[in-house]
């Protein structure tokens, strides 16, 4: 197991190097001149050049790149010109907000999609099956920003049962003491159930939006995988041995159907990380997605590079975890390695 982790981490190094190069080049290729942007419209040419020099933008591209890599090696992601903050600090502060949303969304999606897919597969043609088909069609056809706006419109504006989409906490609360950065966890650790519910209330709509988005592929894959496994020879053997229906369904069928489901899980998780940019804008969520968008609009290189790099590292970690999960589920995987 440890050897596998080591091997996968080594294999990820070229990916990370590639990502560093590509993000660097891409951000430089973006239109807009940050020096002019920060100097302001009234600045003289001289002032702009001064700012350019202080940002290091007067250096040739390779010189800037070497500086950038050198900083990276020291763990320095640079300074955000627009906020004046260290990018690394900002990202670390905002990452838990994004992760809390994404993980909870994934959890909710799994909690609905897996039972739905299993039920639909065990009762093909029943109302559960039709419900499953309806939900997956809806989930696929609704764009995520639209679902988010629709939910906010209906549940906040029309019905008034959801809190306003103003971020992680209503302004009358102050955040819990920082332990994990996950408000739900931290408020529980602080022994403050009221804060827990306040934070939870704010999460309902964005989490639901994310969950609806990824529910569809998960439920569909679960249903398809279960249908395949349930008609397989070894399930027939298990039934012929008189194993109870629950044992056949979970220990024999579902655990085998997990393999494609886990693959899909990895895929939808990366979709979710990507779409956090949109969701955080809709719900004014102070995560890394909204941070990156704001920085991008202001031609602020360092946060954008930092964001893409952090995302890339998250993907690498995610893929590693999926691979490990595979070896845990399927004994055949380790020898193919």
């Amino acid at each position, binding site marked *: 197991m440890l050897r596998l982790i080591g091997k996968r981490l080594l294999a990820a190094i070229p990916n990370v190097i590639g990502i560093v190069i590509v993000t660097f080049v891409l951000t430089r290729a973006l239109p807009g001149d940050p020096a002019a942007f920060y100097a302001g419209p009234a600045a003289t040419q001289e002032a702009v050049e001064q700012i350019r020099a202080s940002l290091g933008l007067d250096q040739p591209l390779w010189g800037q790149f070497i500086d950038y890599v050198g900083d990276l090696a020291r763990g320095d992601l640079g300074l955000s010109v627009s906020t004046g903050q260290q990018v690394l600090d900002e990202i670390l502060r905002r990452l838990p907000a994004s992760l809390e949303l994404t993980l909870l969304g994934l959890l909710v999606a799994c909690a609905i999609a897996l039972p739905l897919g299993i039920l639909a597969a065990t009762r093909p043609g029943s109302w559960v099956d039709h419900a499953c088909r309806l939900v997956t069609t809806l989930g696929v056809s609704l764009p995520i920003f639209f679902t988010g706006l629709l939910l906010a419109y209906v549940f906040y504006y029309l019905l008034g049962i959801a809190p306003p989409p103003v971020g992680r906490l209503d302004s009358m609360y102050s955040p819990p003491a920082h332990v994990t950065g996950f408000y739900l966890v931290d408020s529980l650790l602080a022994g403050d159930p009221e804060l827990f519910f306040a934070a939870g209330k704010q999460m309902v709509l964005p989490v639901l939006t994310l969950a609806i988005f990824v529910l569809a592929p998960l439920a569909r894959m679960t249903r398809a995988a279960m249908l395949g496994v349930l008609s397989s020879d070894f399930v027939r053997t298990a039934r012929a*041995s008189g194993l*109870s229906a629950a044992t056949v369904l979970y220990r024999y069928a579902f*655990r085998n159907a997990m393999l494609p489901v886990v693959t899909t899980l990895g895929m939808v998780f990366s979709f979710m990380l990507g779409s956090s940019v949109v969701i955080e804008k809709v719900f004014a969520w102070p995560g890394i997605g909204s941070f990156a968008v704001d920085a991008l609009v202001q031609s602020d290189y360092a946060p954008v590079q930092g964001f893409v790099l952090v995302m890339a590292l998250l993907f690498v970690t995610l893929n590693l975890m999926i691979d490990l999960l595979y070896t845990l589920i399927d004994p055949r995987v380790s020898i193919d390695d």
Partner: protein
Amino acid sequence: MDSPVPLLSVESLGVEFRTRGGTVHALEDVSFTVGKGETVGVVGESGSGKSVLFYAVLGILDAAGRITGGRAVFGGLDLVRASASELEEIRGREAAMIFQNPRVALNPIRKVGHQIEDVLARHTSTPSAELRRRAVEALAAVRIPDPERRYHAYPFELSGGLCQRIMIAIALACSPSLLVADEPTTGLDVTTQAAVMDLIGELARKRNMASVLITHDLGLAAEHCDRIVVMHAGHVVEVAPTAELFARPRHPYTARLIATTPHAVADLRSLAAIPGSLPDLRRGDLPACRFLDRCDRSEAACLQRPLPRVSAGPAHAVACRRPL
């Protein structure tokens, strides 16, 4: 055709499948018995309904399949009317089944030892500390070399022959009184086939266990079975003791089947294919005798229902209006 106290007695069993292409009349009026400790061969072409017959008896038909009538009395209980939980209790404990292509008929991601334990835990009151020892014993009973080590193996690490032995170990773990072997040698190489058949025969004798061998290979059935049930297109067309069936086949289909079997003829050149194919079982107007279209002895009377069941000896019955 009846042994004194039949272990399994199937009477007028009918099964149909609902498919998109229409209702498939897979089994009609199927009757036969299996005596205690007896070995019965069920022989027929692919699609003759021989596997479906035992899926129906053991209650493991697909959701699309439905028993339309009849009885299947096993150990005093009518399995057709038994509840799902009664059937679960019987399967694996009283009546077990093994299948073809053993490498895919075992759970690919579960250790074979645990798969045996699952059955033991389900049907016996073995304390969990004992399960492992019992599972290793079950592996040893089917003569798997080094059972302690194989206990931890996954099916993909084992050969087809070993996987079939594992499946036999699972089936026999609770000492059932009936073993149904559905094409147990299909997918195995020839030398392994013989070993597996010998193992099944030996274990059945040792435990006085009745066994049913479902096969399309009349030669294999002849070699291992006391009696043979010949099926064609969802009908039982002939039942007879093995020697008598080969010496005096009465149904035209049986005679043709024997003529296609290399074991039974002196000269390979005299092997004959059976003309035609199984009738489309989705037809609503299936004739009383489903062999009619392929038979060279058919006459107008053969269309009349019901299909007669003629006794041709003390244990020999044939479902034909014009037997040989």
